């Protein structure tokens, strides 16, 4: 069992005027793979370092397995950490690096040997055990860093942007390796990244942070489908969600530029109930929820004409940067022959459209 609870955790640096982490409340379940994601300076790494014990907690309580560990030294928290820049000991061999933590903890030589060999097998590091870190590639170094954490058999794995120094191809490969490793080791893992793709592909649950505050906690699907606010919608997903200023008329139609689109009744009902009729809103729609409309006779109440600014061919898909009146709209469609300047007809999947309050940025429906 390794449940981690953050209870009103705050962090204020010395000389710092504001809080780097503001009132963080989170419960991480046993064996969960949780990802902290957010732009730089959002407090994700600081939170991880507080859990590791490398950073003092200014206010609040941190529990690991129901035990308050605010004052516990990192070595007494039964955690292992993988750093962004590997932090391998350059004067030790790969074996030495992996064995060091066990040696310090006075493990028997046979046991150290067994564990290091086993981890090296899993990570494919067998032939490199006698090499120094300088003689390894970036990917191999990161594997050693993972191995160093693995041999300790910790309750909790902490990973601070472990893949951000690797090239794109290796990153994708290591991503799946880390997930496999997590399944194999069954340890609670907290993973910090600024890369939303990593968060989406790896996490059981994602914690999205911004300016020291949690914006949303949820499974990747929950967060993708129902972003709690405009920030989350724009941060998760590539290309980001489209945000369009819209006006909701008293008749239950929304006006986007010169166009008027009818809203499904279920959405109308909710918006009406929440008193958003006749006011400005922000409509949000994912690029893949906008479709090309080839049939001229289709219902004009959901079809808009747009002009292509730029067409980006990605292979099987095509990203179209379009304009409707003065509103920018990014559309993801199956690849075809698109040229800038072309006029296309677009239909919104209105059930997938989300509405946000323009003042608070919060999701309405």
């Amino acid at each position, binding site marked *: 069992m390794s449940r981690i609870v953050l209870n009103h955790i705050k962090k204020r640096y*010395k000389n710092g005027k504001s809080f780097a982490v503001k009132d963080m409340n989170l419960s991480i379940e046993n064996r969960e793979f949780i990802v902290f994601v957010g732009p730089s300076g959002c407090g994700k790494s600081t939170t991880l370092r507080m859990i*590791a*014990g*490398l950073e003092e907690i200014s206010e609040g309580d941190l529990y690991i397995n129901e035990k308050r560990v605010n004052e516990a*030294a*990192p*070595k007494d928290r039964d*955690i*292992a*950490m993988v*750093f*962004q*820049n*590997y*932090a*391998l*000991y*350059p*004067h030790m061999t790969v074996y030495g690096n992996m064995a*060091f*933590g066990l040696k*310090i*903890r006075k493990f028997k030589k046979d046991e150290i040997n067994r564990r290091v060999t086993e981890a090296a097998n899993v990570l494919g590091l067998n032939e490199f055990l006698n090499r*120094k*870190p*300088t*003689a*390894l590639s*970036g990917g191999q*170094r990161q594997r050693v860093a993972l191995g*160093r954490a693995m041999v*300790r058999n910790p309750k909790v794995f902490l990973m601070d942007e472990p893949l951000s*120094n690797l090239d794109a191809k290796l990153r994708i490969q290591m991503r799946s390796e880390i997930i496999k490793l997590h399944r194999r080791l069954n340890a609670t893992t907290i993973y910090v990244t600024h890369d939303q793709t990593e968060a989406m592909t790896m996490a059981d649950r994602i914690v999205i942070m911004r300016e020291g505050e949690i914006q949303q906690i949820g499974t990747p699907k929950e967060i993708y489908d129902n972003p709690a606010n405009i920030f989350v919608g724009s941060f998760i997903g590539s290309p980001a969600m489209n945000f369009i200023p819209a006006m909701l008329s008293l008749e239950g139609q929304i006006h986007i530029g010169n166009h008027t689109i009818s809203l499904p009744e279920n959405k109308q009902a909710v918006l009406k109930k929440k008193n958003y009729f006749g006011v400005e809103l922000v409509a949000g729609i994912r690029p893949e929820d906008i479709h090309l409309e080839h049939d001229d006779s289709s219902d004009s109440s959901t079809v808009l004409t747009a002009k292509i600014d730029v067409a980006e061919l990605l292979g099987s898909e095509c990203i179209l940067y379009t304009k409707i009146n003065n509103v920018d709209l990014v559309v993801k469609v199956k690849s075809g022959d698109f040229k800038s300047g072309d006029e296309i007809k677009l239909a919104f999947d209105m059930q997938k459209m989300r509405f946000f309050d323009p003042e608070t940025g919060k999701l309405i429906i």
Partner: protein
Amino acid sequence: MKTKLTVTYVILSVFALGGLLPVLWMFVMSLQTPRALNSFPTLNWFKDFEFNNYQIALNQGGIYQGLINSSIITGGTLIISVTFATLAAYALANFEFKGKALLLIGILMTQLIPGMAAIVPLFDILKSLHLINTYTGLILIFAARTIPLNIWIMHGFFKELPAELREAAIIDGCSVYTTFTRIILPLALPGIGAACMFTFMQTWIDFIMPLTTLFDQNKFPFTVMLYKYVGDPIMGTNYGVVFASAVIGTLPTLLMFVFFQRFFVKGLTSGAVKG
């Protein structure tokens, strides 16, 4: 590109030659007979050389004692100065405490006092501590003199080591002490090498301090011993022997440099973190 490289090498060669010239001069002079040294116009220095001066210098015996004394003084200073400076610099580089910046500047400020100006007060202090005419007294003075700059040298090296290494060690279960001895110290060897080199140079070649604080001839370091050869009232100065002794006295410095040079090679930390 090629022209730029050539110009660089020419300039560097001129500087290297400028640095080498006194050494070369010392070596050539050490091989001359007294007649050749005192003749005017000069005889052909490169024709009539002999190793007699070295024989005289070594047979006089005093030079051995001088070298041994210098080694004791320098060795003692090295151990005290580098140990204290390394520990102090580690604390200054890695731990937060009140007045740290002021302390660092204060340490640097001590270097503004010219060595000569401190001779009289230092003599007074040694006297009141009953350390006049002792190696201990001299070693303490040299240590006090070299510790500040050594702190700065080591501080720079510790600052350059990535903080993650220390943090990784802490997570691995190291205490402050084991982090220092098992992780930081091996990586700080280039810095320690540089500090040793600096301390050695400062101490081995110093002349004024032992001259003023040591009275016992048997305790004189090599530099003061050499002084004895100058201006002998009866025999006159045998410059050939002085130069030969100087060459012998330079050898440890040379050896020291050859030994520590490998520590200067940077890049020991490359591979620790993404570079």
